[in-house]
C-alpha cells in the first residue's frame, strides 16, 4: 500500500495540527479564514491549554501550528510556548507581527522547538494593506527585522495567493531572502470572511497555470501542500498531495472545538470538543466525522477524469463553501470542470455568519509603534 493511501486512512495521532488560541485580533483582514476580531468569552483557560499540550505530548504529536486570530494577544501566550517546549511538542506560531518586539524575537530565536511565521499578502504596502489594513505591512516587516536581527534563520513568511498579488511572486521570494526567511505560499479558500471576497480574489485559470510553473521550478518554496489540486497540470508538486483533514491533521479552536481543518469552521465539519470526556484523544480516534473522512475517497463525478489520482478531487473546503458537492470537482479544477459545475449548480452557498468579526466595520487602530 502506498504511504499516501495509508495516511488517507488516518493515524492513531495527528502528525501535526493547527491550534487557534483566540478569535481576538487587532487586524480585520478581508479574507480571514476564522472570521476573527473579537475574543470569545468561552476561550480555553490556561490550565485547559496545558491539558491539551499534555495530551498532544502523550500522543507524540510532533508539532503544533499555533494561530488565531492573533495568538500573541493572549496574555499566557509565552507561558504556553514554554510549556510546549518543556513537553517536547514543537511549535510554529502564525502572527501578524504585532507583538514581535526585539525581546520577543530573541526568545523565539533561542530554541529549535519554536518557529515563527509572519503573514503578509502583498510585496508592498499598497497591495498588502488593501487586504490586511493600513499599517499592517509595516508591522509585519518590523517583526521580520527583529527576528532576523535576533539571528532567527528560516522563519516563515507566509502569503495567501490572490488575483492581486500573483504577479509579485518573485518579489515575495526576494523579500523572504532579504530576511533569511523561508517563503510560504498558500491557497485562498472561500472560508470565513474569505467567502465574501473569493469571487474577486481567487486566481484566474491562467494565473493558476502561472503559479504552478513558478512552484514547480522552486521546490524549496513551502506551500503546506495547499495547491495539490494543481498537480493535475503535470508533475506533482512536493508534499503528500492529499487532503489531510481528519486524517493526519485537524484544528482545535479557541473554545476547544475540534474541526477537520482550519478552513472548515462549520458545524458540518466539527468532530467534537476537547472539553468532552476523553478529551482531544477521544475525538481524534473515535469521532463519527473523522471516522467517515478516513473511509476511502470515492471519485464520484470525477471518476471519468484521468486526473483524479493526481488531484484527488481537490479541496473539501473550497467545494463546501462554493456550494459544490464534495464528491465532484474543486471549484478551481484546472480542467474547468469546477467552473462548469458552479454554473450548473442548484445548491446555494452555505450561510456563513459574521463569526467573531469586529462589528460595524470597526477597524482597530494600531496605536503602538514597536
Amino acid at each position, binding site marked *: 500500500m502506498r*504511504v499516501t493511501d*495509508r495516511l488517507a486512512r488516518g*493515524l492513531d495521532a495527528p*502528525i501535526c495540527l493547527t491550534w487557534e488560541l483566540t478569535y481576538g485580533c487587532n487586524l480585520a483582514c478581508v479574507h480571514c479564514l476564522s472570521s476573527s476580531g473579537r475574543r470569545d468569552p468561552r476561550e480555553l483557560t490556561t490550565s485547559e491549554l496545558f491539558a491539551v499540550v499534555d495530551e498532544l505530548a502523550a500522543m*507524540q504529536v*510532533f*508539532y503544533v501550528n499555533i494561530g488565531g486570530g492573533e495568538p500573541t494577544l493572549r496574555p499566557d501566550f509565552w507561558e504556553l510556548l514554554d510549556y510546549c517546549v518543556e513537553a*517536547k511538542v*514543537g511549535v510554529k506560531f502564525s502572527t501578524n507581527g504585532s507583538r514581535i518586539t526585539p525581546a520577543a524575537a530573541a526568545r523565539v530565536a533561542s530554541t529549535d*522547538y519554536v518557529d515563527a511565521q509572519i503573514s503578509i499578502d502583498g510585496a508592498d504596502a499598497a497591495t498588502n494593506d488593501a487586504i490586511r489594513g493600513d499599517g499592517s505591512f509595516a508591522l509585519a516587516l518590523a517583526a521580520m527585522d527583529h527576528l532576523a536581527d535576533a539571528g532567527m534563520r528560516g522563519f516563515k513568511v507566509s502569503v495567501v495567493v490572490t488575483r492581486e498579488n500573483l504577479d509579485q511572486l518573485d518579489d515575495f521570494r526576494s523579500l523572504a531572502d532579504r530576511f533569511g526567511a523561508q517563503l510560504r505560499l498558500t491557497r485562498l479558500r472561500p472560508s470565513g470572511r474569505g467567502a465574501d471576497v473569493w469571487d474577486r480574489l481567487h486566481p484566474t485559470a491562467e494565473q493558476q497555470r502561472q503559479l504552478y510553473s513558478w512552484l514547480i521550478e522552486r521546490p524549496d518554496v513551502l506551500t503546506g501542500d495547499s495547491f495539490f489540486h494543481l498537480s493535475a497540470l503535470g508533475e506533482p508538486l512536493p508534499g503528500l498531495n492529499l487532503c489531510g483533514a481528519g486524517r493526519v491533521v485537524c484544528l482545535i479552536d479557541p473554545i476547544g472545538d475540534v474541526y477537520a481543518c482550519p478552513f472548515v469552521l462549520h458545524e458540518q465539519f466539527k468532530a467534537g470538543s476537547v472539553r468532552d470526556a476523553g478529551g482531544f484523544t477521544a475525538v481524534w480516534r473515535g469521532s463519527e466525522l473523522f471516522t467517515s473522512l478516513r473511509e476511502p475517497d470515492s471519485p464520484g463525478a470525477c471518476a471519468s477524469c484521468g486526473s483524479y489520482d493526481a488531484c484527488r478531487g481537490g479541496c473539501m473546503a473550497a467545494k463546501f463553501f462554493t456550494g459544490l458537492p464534495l464528491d465532484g470537482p474543486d471549484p478551481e479544477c484546472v480542467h474547468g470542470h469546477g467552473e462548469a459545475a458552479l454554473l450548473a449548480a442548484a445548491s446555494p452557498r452555505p450561510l456563513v455568519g459574521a463569526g467573531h468579526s469586529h462589528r460595524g466595520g470597526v477597524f482597530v487602530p494600531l496605536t503602538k509603534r514597536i
Partner: protein
Amino acid sequence: MTAYALHPQVGLRDEQFGALAYHYGNRRLTFLNDARLVTVVRSAADYDDVDAALDAAGVPVESRPAYATALARLAQAEVLVARD
C-alpha cells in the same frame, strides 16, 4: 565496521506501516515503511556493527545491501548518527 545510533534530536513514533521519524532541529519528517528497518533503527546503538543489528532484526541476507543503503540515507538525513 559501520555502527549507528538514533540522532538525539529525533522523535520516533510507531505506526502500523512502520514508524515516523521527526527531527526537531531540521524539521524533516521521514517515513520508515518497514517494521524490520524500524527495529534496526531503534536498536542500532546496541550494536558495534550494523550487520549484527540487521541479523538480529531478521533481515534476509539478500536484502541487506538495500537496507544498508536505506541506513546510509537515514544518516545523511540526520535521523541516524554514525558512530566510531
